């Protein structure tokens, strides 16, 4: 049995339930979905004693407000600059016990875009093909496949008895990688050969601006158009992080809910380890690309995984 945990008063922009990805159905045409910033999401879950991939709220809100229906414990990470419980500011980087009728306000004026809100035991979501992650494009998972809205009531496990509250060690705060100017590593893509050396040099030496067209499907960059020699290619596999170059010249980086195939030249793929940094960039922010080898990207990702696993196993 699940208990109602919270009622959303202000859902802000593009808020969804997210969890472990719906991996392994790409050959059915089904996107992966799941956390866009895995680091912040896993830190939020850790704060309340959850498993790494428990279902939580992911939100692009600058302001998020909810009231508590049943006692629970909350962990917030990612793009949040202030937490108020019944009007009182509280620490950003530790878990908090909440009691019935508490009113919680989350503000964001950081350089990050996405906040994560976890509750002990996780929220309840519709499981579709093994995952509760919401894919709003295709109406799968989460709360009836929809983005969260004001007045939504979210349920959770009745075994959400507060455990010890945790504090995130100073060096691991997710805010540390938020910036107006980010650099992400890119592994050359299968169609890099469709670009002249000059165009590729340009791609790696200029900053792009993140446009206002951002969603969980893709981020469109602008400010420095890139052109391929040919666009006449069949649709091929694309993964989250794939940088596609459409004829308009403005690159599109596919995100967690991106399609599984695409027909634009694939210039490169953002290294997994840097995907949280990119996901957290706000519209108007700038991104530079740095070429890297798959081996280096893998090594850096392994290090990232390792410190999260160590945190969880302490």
């Amino acid at each position: 049995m699940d208990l109602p945990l919270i009622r959303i008063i202000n859902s802000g922009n593009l808020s969804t339930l997210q969890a472990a990805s719906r991996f392994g159905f790409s050959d059915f045409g089904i996107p992966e979905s799941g956390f866009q910033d895995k680091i912040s999401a896993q830190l939020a879950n850790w704060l309340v004693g959850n498993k790494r991939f428990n279902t939580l709220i992911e939100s692009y809100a600058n302001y998020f407000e909810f009231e508590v229906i049943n006692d629970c414990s909350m962990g917030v990470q990612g793009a949040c600059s202030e937490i108020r419980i019944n009007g009182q500011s509280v620490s950003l980087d530790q878990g908090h016990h909440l009691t019935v009728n508490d009113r919680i306000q989350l503000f964001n004026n950081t350089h990050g875009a996405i906040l994560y809100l976890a509750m002990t035991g996780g929220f309840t979501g519709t499981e579709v093909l093994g995952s509760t992650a919401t894919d709003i494009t295709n109406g799968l998972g989460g709360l009836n496949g929809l983005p969260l809205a004001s007045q939504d009531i979210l349920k959770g496990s009745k075994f959400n008895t507060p455990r010890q509250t945790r504090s995130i060690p100073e060096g691991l705060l997710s805010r540390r990688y938020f910036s107006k100017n980010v650099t992400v590593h890119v592994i050359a893509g299968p169609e890099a050969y469709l670009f002249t050396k000059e165009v590729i040099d340009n791609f790696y030496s200029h900053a792009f601006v993140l446009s206002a067209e951002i969603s969980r499907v893709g981020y469109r960059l602008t400010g420095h158009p890139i052109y391929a020699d040919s666009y006449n290619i069949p649709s091929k596999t694309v993964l989250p992080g794939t940088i596609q170059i459409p004829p308009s010249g403005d690159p599109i980086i596919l995100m967690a809910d991106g399609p599984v195939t695409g027909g634009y030249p694939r210039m490169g793929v953002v290294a997994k380890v840097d995907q949280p940094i990119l996901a957290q960039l706000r519209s108007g922010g700038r991104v530079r690309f740095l070429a890297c080898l798959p081996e280096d990207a893998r090594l850096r990702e392994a290090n990232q995984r390792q410190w999260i696993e160590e945190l969880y196993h302490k």
Partner: protein
Amino acid sequence: MGGIQWRYLGEDAIEISNISSSIHVQLGLRDYLKGFPKLGIVSFMLTDKTLTLVSEKYGFMSVSHIIDRVAAYQHKVDENVMLPLSIIPICYDEAFALDQLKLEGICKLDYEEIISLHLNAEYTVAMFGFMPGFPYLNGLPLSLSIPRLKSPRKIIPKGSVAIANEMCGIYPNQTPGGWHIIGRSPLSLFDPLKDDVLPLKLGQRVKFQRISKKDFDGFTPN
């Protein structure tokens, strides 16, 4: 690594290109590789003569092992059990054939000629992509092979049957999209809550069967 062509797609995936254009050979190779769990491959994706393999967690420690296996694969004819022919009802009524005029103009044919070309062809499910359950069907007659719309349509109704670039496809749900719409099918092609999520299978042969607007409106999926 012999004559096998491959490239990275990010740090955890490789793409083997220029494998056979036969979907049955592609599926045979995929199933053969599935027989070697130690290769650590967790996802197999087929697109146009290309097999994309996603590796397990820490990446491809063994690209060369995988390539060796690919090189060793020998397709045995008739290894796959032939799936039954799937018949897909389609209504070409002008209420559904949203690009009728464009198609007539580009193909320089009248609509009944276009319909009969489309109906007479036998198709094969070559891949799923673009959106859940969207089948890419090989076998479109060359005289119907036309480029995508210059600018995509904002809303394509669920069930729309569309053509572009030597392919035919069916939109399982409402979506924006860039193919020319030739008609509409009342069949449900994607239901994540059913045991059989996708009624069509990779490699399956497909034929369209014309139905009237009246039959379309009265259609009940079984």
